[in-house]
C-alpha cells in the first residue's frame, strides 16, 4: 500500500486511497493534523507532534519547529545531546505518520508519495527524498503541493474545469499554480512561488509590532534567547488566530511568574503585514504571465494552507481577483488528500485508471556562458537558459554553443537552476568539462541537450561534432556519493532515541500540554494545574490503566476549561 504524506512547515498529515476515496488517517491523539515539531531531551527521550509543540514553551532548547525551512541546507539544530539535520527531524515525523497508518490499517506502508512546494529547488527535493529513506520508507514520487491540491479539488465529481488558480500559503512557503482539468487530464499550466513567505513571517511581523509594547517587562530581557523567541512566537501564533475572529486580541507572554501583555487591533496587524501581503501578488502575476492566461479567464481561486484563513489575505485576494475565493476544499487537508490520489494512481487503486497528471518545470535550467560587451570584451559570465521555466515536463531541449578563445582545449561550465542572469545567484546543480579540438575561436560548436523528466531527474547530453566527442551525464547531488553511509548513520542515531509507545503517547502529550499551560498561567490557576499534574503523575506510577485514563480525561478537561476561559 502506498500512502500520501503532506509534510508541511507547521502541520503534517497522512492519507490513503481506500474503497475508492481518499481518507486522512488520524494520529495517536485522534487528530488528523500532526504538528511538525520534534522535541528530544538529554536522556534521548523524544516527543513528536502536539506534545513536542507544547514542549516548545517549556523546553525550547530541546525542541525544533518549522525545520522544513532548513531542508536543502547544511543547517543543524542541537537537541538533547546531538545535532540534528532537517532531514533527520523530518524523518522522525514521517516515521510517526507511517506508524499511524500501520495502526489504522495493520500494514506498514511499502511506499509513499510526499508533497513538496512547487517552488522547491533540486537540493530541497533531494533532502525530502533522503528524509523518507532515513525513515525507512520508499519514496515513490514527490508531488508538488498545488498539484496535489488541484487533484483534491473536485474530487467528488471529477468534472472538467477551465484553468483555475491554486493559492497555497502555508506556514513557511507560498506557491501559486494554474491548473486545468479535462477528460481525466490534470494539466499544470504554470507555477510560481516564494520559498520564504508563510504564516511564520506573519507571526514574526506581529512579534515586531507587539514586543516594544510589552514595555518595561524586565522579565523578557532576563530570558535566554531561545526561550524568549519560542514564547514570543507562540504568543504571536495565538494572537494571530484570535484576530481571525475578532477585531482585537491580546498578545500575552508568561514566564517565571510574570506576565506581560498588550492589545493588538486588526487594523494595526494589517498595517504591519502590508509588505508581506504585497509579496503575494508577484508570484500570481508571474504565473499568469508565463501561461498567458488573463485573470478573468480563471474559473476559480482555490485556497490551500492554514494561513489563507487570515482575513487580511482573503481581502487582498478579493481585491486582486475581483471575486471571492473558493472555499470548497479544506485548506489544511487538501494537499494530503491529493497526495493520496497520486498514491492511489501509483498502486492502481480503484476508480483512478483514467487520470493523467502533467506538471511543469518550476525553474529555468541552463549553463554558464561568457558575457561580452559592445566592444567584444569579455565581462564575466552569464546564465544561458536551455529549458525555460514552466515548460511542460518531461522535456528535452538542445542549444548550440561555441568556443570563446583561439586554441581552446577545454570548456568548463556550470549547470544551474534559477532565474537570475548572474549565475552566482542561481542554484548550481553540477559541472561539465568538455574537451574540444584546437581551433580558432567560434569554430568549434558544442551541442548541449538537457532532458528533464517527470520525476525531476536531469540528464545532460554533450556532443562536439567536430571531434565526435560525446558524453552523457545524469545530474546527481554532489553529496550523493556519501549519502548512503550518511543515511545509515542517521537511521542508527534515530533508532537509539526513545519513542513513546503508542499507548503511552496520549499520556505524554497530556503531560506536555499540562506543563505548558502551567507555565502560561500565574497564581491560583497555576497552582490548580500543578496539583492536577501531580495527581496524574501519581496515577502513571501506579500503572493502573483505568485510573490513568480517568485522570487523563479529567486533566484534559481542566486544561480545556482554563484555556477557553483564562482568568484575567
Amino acid at each position, binding site marked *: 500500500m502506498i500512502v500520501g504524506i503532506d509534510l508541511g512547515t507547521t502541520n503534517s498529515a497522512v492519507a490513503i486511497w481506500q474503497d475508492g476515496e481518499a481518507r486522512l488517517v488520524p494520529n495517536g491523539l485522534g487528530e488528523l493534523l500532526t504538528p511538525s515539531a520534534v522535541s528530544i531531551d538529554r536522556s534521548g527521550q523524544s516527543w513528536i507532534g502536539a506534545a513536542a509543540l507544547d514542549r516548545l514553551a517549556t523546553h525550547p532548547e530541546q525542541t525544533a519547529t518549522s525545520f522544513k525551512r532548513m531542508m536543502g541546507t547544511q543547517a543543524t539544530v542541537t537537541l538533547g545531546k546531538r545535532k540534528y539535520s532537517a532531514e533527520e527531524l523530518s524523518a522522525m515525523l514521517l516515521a510517526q505518520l507511517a506508524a499511524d497508518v500501520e495502526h489504522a490499517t495493520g500494514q506498514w506502508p511499502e511506499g509513499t508519495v510526499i508533497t513538496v512546494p512547487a517552488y522547491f529547488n533540486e537540493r530541497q527535493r533531494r533532502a525530502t527524498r533522503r528524509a523518507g529513506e532515513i525513515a525507512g520508507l520508499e519514496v515513490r514520487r514527490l508531488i508538488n503541493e498545488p498539484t496535489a491540491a488541484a487533484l483534491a479539488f473536485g474530487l467528488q465529481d471529477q468534472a472538467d474545469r477551465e484553468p483555475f488558480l491554486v493559492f497555497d500559503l502555508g506556514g513557511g512557503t507560498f506557491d501559486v499554480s494554474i491548473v486545468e482539468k479535462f477528460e481525466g487530464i490534470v494539466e499544470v499550466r504554470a507555477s510560481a512561488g516564494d520559498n520564504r513567505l508563510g504564516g511564520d513571517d506573519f507571526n514574526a511581523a506581529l512579534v515586531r509590532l507587539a514586543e516594544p509594547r510589552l514595555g518595561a517587562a524586565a522579565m523578557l530581557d532576563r530570558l535566554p534567547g531561545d526561550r524568549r523567541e519560542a514564547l514570543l512566537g507562540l504568543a504571536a501564533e495565538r494572537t494571530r488566530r484570535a484576530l481571525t475572529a475578532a477585531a482585537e486580541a491580546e498578545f500575552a507572554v508568561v514566564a517565571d511568574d510574570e506576565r506581560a501583555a498588550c492589545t493588538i487591533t486588526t487594523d494595526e496587524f494589517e498595517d504591519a503585514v502590508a509588505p508581506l501581503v504585497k509579496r503575494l501578488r508577484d508570484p500570481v502575476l508571474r504565473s499568469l504571465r508565463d501561461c498567458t492566461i488573463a485573470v478573468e479567464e480563471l474559473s476559480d481561486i482555490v485556497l490551500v494552507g492554514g494561513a489563507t484563513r487570515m482575513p487580511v489575505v482573503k481581502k487582498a485576494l478579493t481585491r486582486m481577483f475581483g471575486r471571492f475565493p473558493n472555499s470548497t476544499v479544506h485548506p489544511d487537508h487538501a494537499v494530503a488528500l491529493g497526495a493520496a490520489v497520486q498514491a492511489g494512481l501509483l498502486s492502481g487503486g480503484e476508480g483512478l485508471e483514467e487520470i493523467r497528471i502533467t506538471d511543469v518545470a518550476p525553474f529555468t535550467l541552463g549553463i554558464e556562458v561568457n558575457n561580452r560587451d559592445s566592444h*567584444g570584451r569579455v565581462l564575466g559570465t552569464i546564465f544561458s537558459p536551455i529549458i525555460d521555466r514552466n515548460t511542460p515536463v518531461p522535456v528535452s531541449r538542445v542549444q548550440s554553443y561555441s568556443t570563446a578563445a583561439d586554441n581552446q582545449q577545454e570548456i568548463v561550465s556550470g549547470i544551474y537552476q534559477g532565474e537570475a542572469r548572474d549565475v552566482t545567484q542561481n542554484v548550481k546543480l553540477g559541472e561539465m568539462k568538455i574537451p574540444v579540438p584546437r581551433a580558432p575561436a567560434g569554430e568549434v560548436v558544442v551541442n548541449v541537450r538537457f532532458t528533464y523528466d517527470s520525476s525531476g531527474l536531469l540528464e545532460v547530453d554533450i556532443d562536439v561534432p567536430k571531434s565526435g566527442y560525446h558524453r552523457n551525464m545524469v545530474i546527481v547531488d554532489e553529496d550523493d556519493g556519501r549519502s548512503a553511509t550518511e543515511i545509515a548513520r542517521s537511521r542508527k542515531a534515530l533508532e537509539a532515541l526513545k519513542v513513546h509507545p503508542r499507548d503511552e503517547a496520549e499520556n505524554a502529550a497530556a503531560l506536555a500540554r499540562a506543563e505548558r499551560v502551567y507555565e502560561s498561567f500565574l497564581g491560583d490557576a497555576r497552582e490548580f494545574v500543578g496539583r492536577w499534574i501531580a495527581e496524574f503523575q501519581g496515577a502513571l506510577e501506579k500503572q493502573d490503566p483505568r485510573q490513568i485514563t480517568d485522570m487523563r480525561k479529567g486533566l484534559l478537561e481542566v486544561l480545556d476549561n482554563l484555556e477557553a476561559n483564562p482568568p484575567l
Partner: protein
Amino acid sequence: MSAQCWRTLGIKATDDKAAIRRAYADKLKALDVDNDVAGFAKLRQARDIALRLAASAAARAAEEQAPEEPDYRDDGADYGSPDDWDAVVLESDQAPAEPPVPGARTRAWGSEEPPETDSQRIERQLRALAQLVFPDGNYSDDGFTLPDYEQALALVNSLVAEAHAARLEVYNAIDHHLAEMMAQGWPRSAALVERANEEFHWLGEAGTIDERPALRFLNLRIRGMRFVENVGQPGHVLHKVWTELARPGKPNPLDRFRAKKDDVRILLNGVRERYPEVESYLNPERVGWWDRRLTDSGPGIIGWIIRIVGILWMVAVVFGALSRGDNNERNARTQVESAAENQAETPMSEREEELGLRLALEQIMGKDGAVEAGEDYSAFRAGVTTAYLSSRRSGENHEQALVRALQVARVFALDARRLAEFGELVEINEVQRLWLQALQREGRIGEDCPMRKAGLAGLGDVILGVEPQERERAMFRRLREAGLMASHPRFGELRADIPGDVVGAIIDRSGLADETVYAALQDNGHQRRCQVKLAMLDVVLARPGTVSADLLRIL
C-alpha cells in the same frame, strides 16, 4: 505546418475545443511520456496550435454574426441622421443591447455626462502624465520645471494608489504603461521612478533572465541613481575619489596626489561593470587621464631618474635650438609652402569626392554628421565612407553613391539592435516601421519589397518624407551617443519566440490568412514577408515593454 497538428492529434480540422482536448487526452493516455519525450512535446505543441486556430476561427465567427444596425428611417418619423445614433453608441462603454429609443437622442447632446468609468479615469491620468513626460509629444532630456514636477508626481501617486486597490489585470496594465513611459522618457522621468518602483518592486525583477526590457533599462538606472546618491555622502568609502573624478577642469600631474590609485581603480571598474551610465557624471578628461595612469605600469624609480636626465638633456637641447632658432623657422615655413603647393596639385575629383562624402553624411545623420570621427563613431563612419567612396570610384554619381551609403547605414542600425538598450531598440524599430510605411505608400510592399531579401539589398532605395527623415537622423545621432557606432556587432544568429497572442494580433492586423502569416514569419523571402513585418511592428510597438528584448532585436 498547421495541417501537421491535426495529423498528430488524429482528428480532422475542427473548431470544436472539446473535440481537440479529447483527442489530446486519448493520445496522451496512450503515451509513456518519460520514454517518448519528443512525442509528448509534439503532441502538446499540436494541441496548442489547434486550440489557437480554433480560437481565432471562433472570434471571426462571432464578429460576422454581430446584429445589423436597424434602420429607423423607414417609418417616416424624424429621428435625425444615422450619425446621431453613432454619437449615442459611443457615449457608453459597451454596445447597447437593444436599439436606442428615440428619446435617448437627447443624451447625446450632453444633458448629463455618464459617470467616468475606472478605466477611463486611469487612461486620462496616464495621458496627462505622458503629456508632462513628453512635452508636445516629443522626447526631451530636459528636467521638469517645478510646477510640472509636482503635477507629474501627483499623477504618479494617484496612479499608484489606483493600482494598489485594483484587480490584477488593471494593476498589471498600469505597471506596464508606467514602466514603458518612464523607460522611454528617461532621463526626464528620473524623478518619478523611485515612487513607482516602491509600489511595483521593479528592482525585484532586476537581474532575472526574463526581466522586461523596459525594466532592465530602468533598474540599471535606479541602481545607478542610488549609487550616485550614496557616493555623494561624505561618509561613503569612495566619496573622495568620486568628487575628485567629478571635479570639472583639466587634469594636471599634481592631481596624482588627490586620490589613491587603488581607489580609483575600484571605483572605475565597479562603475563600468554595474552602473555604466553613471560614468557620465564624471569629468571625462579626468577619467581618461586616470585610465592612462592605471594602465601604465608606471615608471618606477629608474624611470624617474631617466626622466630627470631626459629633462635636463631637453633643456640643453632647447638652449641650443634657440640659438639656432632662425633656421628652424625657415624650415617650418618651407614645409607649409610645399604642402600648399601639393594641395594645389590635388586632382579635382578627390576634393569633389570629399565634398560629396560630407554631403552624404550630413544627409544621413543631420548637420553634425560630417564631424570628425571620434572613437565613438569609428565603425559606422568607416562603413559609410567605404560604401560611398567605392561607389564613386567605380563611376557612379553622387545620388547612386548616397543610396549605397544609406543602405550601409540602415543595415548598421538594424544590426546595432543586438547591443542596444530598450530606448534605442524601440527607436530603431520605429524607424524600421517608417521605412516599411514609405514602401507601402509607394506600393512596393509586396513581392518587390526590397526588405525581404537577405542582405537587405535596396534598403538604400527607400525614400522618406521630411519628418520621417528627421526622425531617422535623430535615431542615428542617438545610436552614436549610446556608443553603438564604435564597433561592428559580430555575434551569431539570434532567435526569439513570438508569443501566441502576438501572432494572433499580427493575423488580425494584417488581415491575411493564418497559414500565410505563420509561413511569412518563418521565411525571410516569403512574398508577404514585408506586409507581415509591418503588421508585426505595429503590434509590438504598441506595447513594446511586454515582449522579450530578443524579439525586439530580431524584428
